[in-house]
């Protein structure tokens, strides 16, 4: 079967620095794939290469068998790639609902209309999404007055409003309270099976609660791709990712690992 996302020899260089080095990756449709690795491993750069906001230096990116290496970022978005960004990136002067509507009207509305439209389908979808992410009662609030956690939730709603086939989540739980990140995990788990999710996340609770497969990046290169259990068991990963003496994080239960990591 054709993988939904396939990276072949993808590299990205900034002058002498190679941020992403010959990455091969195949994510099957419907997968919940996590990218982990220490800071500076090239995770965010790799995301940009997949989303198309940065061109590759070498290699190809294929989406459902179609080579999209030369396709622009909006073009990839129209082919079903949606993303949340590491740093909240929203339309600050507009309300929560309008933020989501901008994304939703591309799929459900009449985005090229020059006269006002009711956009009923798009607005219903917006209400649905806001309920899903837990912002239903905040829909008329300007984004500027949302809390950090709420903005992350809104980011997810905007990305989902694109009706993606491939959802790229860059640290969606960063800065969220435990309750908020539990809610996020529930939301992502409830996503329909045809949505493929690739997630970069530091919170390993979130990663192991969601992921069906995990890729570990180290210094821009793939160290290992496997199931969560394989990754936990791999000594190489433990060395690279955590350094010696912190194996507890992987051998413990996920919940215990988090406490160990914080200790």
């Amino acid at each position, binding site marked *: 079967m054709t993988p939904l996302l396939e990276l072949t020899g993808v590299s990205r260089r900034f002058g002498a620095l190679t941020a992403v080095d010959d990455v091969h990756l195949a994510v099957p449709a419907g997968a919940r794939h996590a990218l982990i690795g220490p800071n500076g491993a090239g995770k965010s750069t790799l995301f*940009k290469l997949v989303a198309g*906001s*940065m*061109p590759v230096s070498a290699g190809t990116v294929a989406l459902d068998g179609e080579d999209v290496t030369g396709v622009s970022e909006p073009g990839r978005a129209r082919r079903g790639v949606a993303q949340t960004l590491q740093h909240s990136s929203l339309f600050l002067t507009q309300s929560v609902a309008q933020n989501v509507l901008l994304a939703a009207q591309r799929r459900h509305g009449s985005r090229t209309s020059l006269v006002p439209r009711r956009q009923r389908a798009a607005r219903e979808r917006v209400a649905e999404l806001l309920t899903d992410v837990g912002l239903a009662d905040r829909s008329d609030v300007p984004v500027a007055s949302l809390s950090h956690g709420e903005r992350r939730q809104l980011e997810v709603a905007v990305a989902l409003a694109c009706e993606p086939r491939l959802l790229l989540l860059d640290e969606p739980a960063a800065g969220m309270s435990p309750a908020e990140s539990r809610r996020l995990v529930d939301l992502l788990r409830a996503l329909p099976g045809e949505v493929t999710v690739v997630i970069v996340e530091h919170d390993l609770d979130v990663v192991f609660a969601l992921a069906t497969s995990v890729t570990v990046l180290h210094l821009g290169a793939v160290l290992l791709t496997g199931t969560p259990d394989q990754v936990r068991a791999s000594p190489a990963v433990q060395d690279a990712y955590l350094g010696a003496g912190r194996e507890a994080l992987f051998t413990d239960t996920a919940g215990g690992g988090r406490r160990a990591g914080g200790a």
Partner: protein
Amino acid sequence: MLGWFDANLVSILNGFAIGSLLFILAIGLSIVFGMMDVLNLAHGALYLLGSYLAVSFVGGTSSWGGFLVALGVAALVGLLAGGGLSAMTEPLARRPILDQALLTLGVSLVVAELLSIAYGNDVLSIAPPPGLDGSTSVAGNAYPTYRLALIGLGLVLAVAVYLVVERTSVGALVRASVADRDMVSAMGIDNRKVKIAVLGIGSMLATVAGVLGGPVYGARPGLDGTILILALVVVVIGGLGSVTGALIGALVIGQVESLGRALLPDLASFILFGTLAVVLVVRPRGLFGPKTLAGVR
């Protein structure tokens, strides 16, 4: 070919003279924006101020004394005006850079109106200094000596600016801060002092260019806009913050203005715009502009 060259020699020389003047103007505009993020739309008005100073000190009677005094006063006025602009834009430092551009636009409207109140709306001419007010024979064509001197001065200035920017420590600071705007403060230098200095020198170049251009263009209301546009086109073509770019841009636009107007008078504006369009299609940041980082368009 040689015949064509001969027939258009005067136009080509005029192009070099315009180019010299434009280089002096554009280098000021370019460095101020490149280093300080201030798009100084009052640059044209400062040029006009210089020209009117030349009218006051030189006027129709040719004299070296008057011309040199005009240059000195213009340089001083330019430095002060730059300091003033720097102080005026300081409260806007935290605001969008567009606000600073709009402020200088307002200033330029005020300055141009004050000049028109003081000097009237007629076209005033300025005599070149003695010895330069005649004409010289260039390959059989009589050509105004002053313009030849202007071309020479432009060349000298271009070499001087190039040497300062490429070979001195001050130049290194300039290049570093064009490349990275935070560099100045990172090196522990007071950003405000640098801004005053840069705007002062940039404005001084504009007023001095006004005196130098006086014997060629005279002084009249509306000249500020024309000059500003030409300088902007040079900067856009050459690339912001680049000395080489300003020089090449000034030479190209000088020739386009002069030869274009001589050969195809009706199409001159189109040729100017066409040049701009072609350069920007091929190199969106100008010929010698900083390369765009991919993904941060």
